[in-house]
């Protein structure tokens, strides 16, 4: 029985990228594209010895940012899928920790991703070989962060749980919200995360 996961919709709402997996005698895991109005279905081939996960569209709809998960001992990296050719380019040759939920930054050639390393933080990396920029250090981050959404070039919204920041923990406590609950946060780059909405 196939399992579907990690849906991501194109900027115009026409195409859904998705993850799938199934067991059986020949197990498969990877990504597909589905034009839901026409029923057109396309498999994105996994590079040899690697599995593609967690797709997210670029703002022009021409590329996907993905997680490239090796089947061997190589590190997990971020990849870019060119939707014209379905070719995959890795953009982080070496990294510590486990990157997840890559999303394009609007108006730039950079990708934001979650980095799990004794806590989960946020980093930006240039697609054309730029160096990593830490937006939220993992030690000051959360137990987990789900896929962020940009609301401007330097501001994101995200759902997360288990904050390390003592001020956030104290505010959750005062509000009667469990530290382990999913809460919606806003982060302007260069600042600390804050609650997205305040009563």
């Amino acid at each position, binding site marked *: *029985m*196939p*399992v*579907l*996961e*990690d*849906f*991501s*919709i*194109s*900027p*115009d*709402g026409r195409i*859904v990228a*998705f993850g*799938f997996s*199934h067991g*059986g005698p*020949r*197990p*498969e895991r990877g990504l*597909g594209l*589905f034009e*839901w109005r026409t*029923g057109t*279905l396309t*498999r994105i081939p996994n590079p040899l010895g690697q599995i593609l996960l967690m797709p997210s*569209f670029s*703002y022009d709809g021409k590329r996907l940012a993905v997680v490239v998960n090796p089947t061997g001992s190589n590190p997990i990296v971020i990849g870019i899928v060119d939707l014209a050719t379905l070719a995959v380019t890795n953009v982080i040759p070496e990294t510590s920790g486990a990157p997840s939920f890559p999303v394009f930054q609007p108006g730039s050639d950079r990708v934001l991703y979650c980095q799990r390393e004794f806590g989960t933080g946020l980093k930006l990396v240039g697609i054309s070989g730029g160096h990593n920029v830490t937006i939220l250090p993992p030690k000051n981050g959360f137990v987990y962060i*789900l*896929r962020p*959404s*940009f*609301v*401007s070039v330097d501001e994101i*919204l*995200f*759902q997360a749980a288990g904050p390390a920041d003592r001020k956030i923990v104290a505010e959750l406590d005062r509000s009667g919200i469990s530290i382990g609950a999913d809460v*919606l946060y806003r982060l302007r780059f260069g600042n600390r995360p804050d609650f*997205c*909405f*305040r*009563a």
Partner: protein
Amino acid sequence: MSASRNGEVIITLGLNLGVPVTPTGVHNGEVFRIDHDGKPIQLTNLFGHLGWAQVSYDGSTVCFGSKTDRNAPVDLMILDLGTNKVSATGLLAKIRSQPGFTGD
């Protein structure tokens, strides 16, 4: 949670405002839009098990996963934010029969 261009549309999942949990303890999931004051507005009446809601950058369309009960597989649904109409896509049945996805 997912946001469209400039955060104009913020979409999340939550429990049905009328019947959040059935008498047998089953959670009834729905798609919500969060208004600019942070107030959740329920957009669906699916009483479902939902996941992975994402709104398109142009704010027109939401995709999400839904299953009819806890043991059923997830399938792809589409919510048109212009009409609030939910459509089943049949993606799961389609990939079951497509060789590139089955490994056959």
